[in-house]
């Protein structure tokens, strides 16, 4: 099993989520983070004074899938959430050694 952590633009979350679900991977956990990669931030004003905000809001999606599904999910995410400009985000894949479904107590791939 692998965990796919995708950090994407908030405005792409909707269609990315739908695309993943269309392929049958229902389970996911979503949280709000802030971050920056090569992105420079934007400027806002506060009572007549400009300032720079250098951490941008992003959405982090975590999906745990079986090893063979990783590539498909990653490609789906890239396809749907790419805009080609800086700030598109990153995807990290890591190993999960075990998973449990709390409702039933099932383990491993059966639990995802």
């Amino acid at each position: 099993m692998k965990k796919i952590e995708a950090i994407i633009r908030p405005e792409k979350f909707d269609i990315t989520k739908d695309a993943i679900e269309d392929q049958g991977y229902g389970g996911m956990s979503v949280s709000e983070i802030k971050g920056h990669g090569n992105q420079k931030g934007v400027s806002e004003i506060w009572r007549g004074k400009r300032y720079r905000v250098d951490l941008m809001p992003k959405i982090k999606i975590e999906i745990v899938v079986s090893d063979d599904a990783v590539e498909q999910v990653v490609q789906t995410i890239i396809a749907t959430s790419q805009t080609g400009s800086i700030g598109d985000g990153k995807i990290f894949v890591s190993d999960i050694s075990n998973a449990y479904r709390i409702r039933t107590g099932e383990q491993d791939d059966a639990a995802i």
Partner: protein
Amino acid sequence: MRGNKSRWLNVLYFIMCVSCLAYFSTRLVFAGDPSGTVNYGADGSIERLGYSINFTWTLVAAFLIFTMQAGFAMLGGFLQAKNMLGYIAHCFIDGTLGAIVFWVVGFALMFGGSNAAPGLEKGNAFIGFSGFFLSSGSYDVETVMIWLFQMVFATKAVTIIAGAVAERMKFVPYLIYSTCVCGVIYPIYGHWIWGGGWLSSLPYGAGCVDFSGASVIHTVGGMLALTGAWFLGPRMNKFNPDGSSNAIPGHNINLVVLGTLFLAFGWFAFNAGSTLGATDLRISVIAANTFLGGAAGASIIIFASYIIFGYADIGLSCNGALAGLVGVTGACAYIPPWAAIAIGVLSGLIMWGTVIFVERKLKVDDPLGAVAVHGANGIWGMIAVGIFADGTYGGIRGCITGSMEQLKAQLIGALVAMAWGLCTGALLFWLLKITIGLRVSELVEYEGVDIHLHGSPCYPAQAELTSQLDTTEEE
């Protein structure tokens, strides 16, 4: 599934209301000779001009008092965010449905027989019975004006209880309770004091005197709040198995401070407006005393909490301000400014003491402190008249002038108010409890009444994430 039974009760209740309204309405359309128009501008007599000044004063006071409804709603900052909507819904319904109930029945029970205005002729020392629907004889500019002023009072009295039953009460019982208090319980006691009833003609001093509602509104409201909170039981997690209690922090103290300020604003008009006349220049002393009482209540808590905790506890100090305002409500017209300060300081301390007493001794959970702020200080406010009245207004003389007579009348008034509030409250809540039940299920309480009773959180999530939520229409 959830609340299906209540839903039908609601339908029933609703049909009952509508048919009763329809019946009367038809009668009203054909009621003869509505006398609703007077214009004192054209005719130039001084009496009429003086009358219209007083008329306007009372009306403007009623408008300003209405902002207290917003103030009460803001006190919901003391509650958990997940139950906020439930509380403000109660405030909102008290103010809207309550107005209609008071129009239908409450006003007639309270002021019938008082002869305060045209169309209020019938009634005895215990109950009034004319002025229903403001129809026929009571469709008169003066009666309507008094109705408006009394209506904003009545809806405030009902709203007091909303704070004590917050975060766990079912919706339909609240509707029924609110209707009963506004339509029957409050008006009957009110009749005794303000509608020419028996308490106002007690043979001690000037009879039982309550300038603008220490007993009528605050004591009765506070006692009803106590019974309500008692029958409902404490919120989940409020008391530990060992009897100790937990703090359940609210969600927005800023809102509480603003609410307190708006309540204080309304209170100026609440008390000063109770002269029903601006040519009665005592209004300035009343307004000043009102504010000094509140200021003293707030200040004492600031100091006390800073000394005891090392923190200036602003939330508690807001309660102190309200306690001070309640405390001077009964006496504000009869006392000099220094007495207002004395009353306010004591009110603040009484409030804090009562908060602890209610929680530790009675083990009753009163989320907004309605019992401490309104109940305890309403009683204290009645007694204060008997102590501090200096005889300069209305001939009311308290202990400081050497006479104990007035104090007796006040004590009787306060005790009757307590008894009335506790008995009717207990009866009402007990009946509701054994029939349709008072309390929401544990799940509803856990997840908050907002989404379960009102279909939406009060603050729907709006962070980047959730504004993107896929929302699809259904049915």
